């Protein structure tokens, strides 16, 4: 039995989700946390894209594509906001992670 490509991608979303989740809680550095949150988002997008590739008779399913586009817009703005906050904290205190001594 050979798995189709989109099934492999869909399954890959699970370890990616786990990596992001562990990273966002375990890392202390602001940037690492933000990158981990981005990976978490990427796992959800990967799953949605893989779902869209399933055969629906007439090519890919457009609904997950619409969701991913919206999701990416949200994720970019959220990441920009998080980076701005992290930069402001670093400017004001010199800290680049939670729990650091200033």
């Amino acid at each position, binding site marked *: 039995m050979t798995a189709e490509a989109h099934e492999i991608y*869909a399954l890959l*979303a699970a370890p990616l*989700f786990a990596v*992001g*989740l562990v990273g*966002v809680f375990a890392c202390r550095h*602001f940037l690492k*946390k*933000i990158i981990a*949150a981005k990976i*978490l*988002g990427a*796992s*959800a997008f990967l*799953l*949605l894209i893989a*779902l869209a590739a399933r055969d629906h008779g007439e090519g890919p399913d457009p*609904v*997950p594509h619409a*969701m991913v586009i*919206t*999701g990416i817009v*949200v994720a970019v*703005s*959220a990441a920009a*906001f*998080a980076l701005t*906050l*992290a930069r*402001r*904290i670093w400017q*004001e*205190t010199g*800290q680049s992670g*939670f729990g650091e001594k200033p």
Partner: protein
Amino acid sequence: MTAAALSPLMAAAVAVPTAGALAAFLLPNRWRAAVGLGFSVLTLLATFALAAGVTLHGPQDLFLGGWAPPLGIRLHLDGLAAVFLAMTALVAIPVGIYARTFFAAGEGSGSTDQTHLFWPLWLILWAGMNGVYLSADLFNLYVMIEVTGISAVALAVLSGKVPALTAGLRYLLAALVGSLSYLMGVALMYGTAGALDLALVAEAMDRQWTLRVAMGLLLVGLMVKTALFPLHFWLPAAHSAALPPVSAILSALVVKATFYLILRFWVEVFEGSVTIAASQAMGGLGAAAILWGSYQALRQERLKLIVAHSTVGQLGFLFLLLPLITVDATAAEAPWLAWAWHGGIYQALAHAFAKASLFLAVGIFVIAVGSDDRRASVDLVGRLPMTTFAFGLAGMSLIGLPPSGGFVAKWMLLKATFASGQWWWAPVIVAGSFLTAGYVFGILRQAFAPSERRQPLRQVPKTLEICALALAVLAILIGFRSEEVLTLLDIGVPFAEPAPPEGSEP
């Protein structure tokens, strides 16, 4: 008003605050507060018209752009949505007036004055919450959750001070984990059920394991955002470091939006899939939240941290609702289902008014005394009588003393625990009330005690005091007018069996 007039009003509940946010953002600073308050009043009128409309005509659906599901997005209005819309609007007006006076007095501005951004951010947050209450589409809900979450964090860091920034970044990361877990759940739901509309997903819910996983991801994501113990770690710092009007909004309203979704999913979408064990686990987390949050509130030295930890505890009461309404088929018609349902929602309402009032009152204490240390707030009753009275009234509702909204909530929950035989929640409810009394009276005792340590107070604008008092009075008044609220609540939602009114009126 005809039923046809309700559809545009549903869209208006989201569109009006959005338009207000845009207008407030584009206009010069000095216009922002006036425009913001104007649009707030318009939104209040729209939500009241919706509440009246749903009372007259029953639940309504609106298909955005004329596209019906599964392709289009559906807005759905019922009694539950109307109650939460009205709750938000009723908290919004006093908090808005307070914010206008607070910022006009130059409070809360740090090295860079960004406080004029309060209005656009707050109105877009309000639009997001109204969207959460009205959407009946999983993905549209994701967007509304993100709108709510990101604008809430932006409000929390408005002061630009370092503690607020650090707490805000932690809040943002927690909010992102929550909403991305939710999105993962939505993806799995769509992959399995092939639909996003709540009614269609509910039909497709069967015992397939992927749907169970999806349900778990959705619920955990929403629990992070509702700050249910042990996922509350981000809340106390974020809520206490924010400016007083913002703290009131975050603690009274924002956490309720995701609780509302947990409730709606639980009873309308996952109805056949949730097990009694799962509901007991949710109740257990709620019970732990009540005890832990209230205990932590007792131990805090700073006024705003006391009130913020109190939110963790009071949110726990909301989750006691889930085990009480999740029963096997033999109890499907039991009267306590309606008591528990009403009690849980009443807790959300009473807590919204009381907590908003407490944060506004504490904000006044901090301005007057010049310190957030609880030991500094001494001998206030003669010098700030109106605010001390507001704090007392709101505290009364939080504890659950009659005749307040909090009393109705806790009384109905207690009745349901005994009637259903789930007596083990009763000691938790009682202990939670005692712990709440501990920290409320701890602050009040100081406020009443004459002291040599009393410092001269700074002058506080009367408007601030009136706003705090108005919210406290609302928290008490809904205890007297429970009949009307419950009638509205029962329109078009499960557990609408008319509950025997005895006990609901003090």
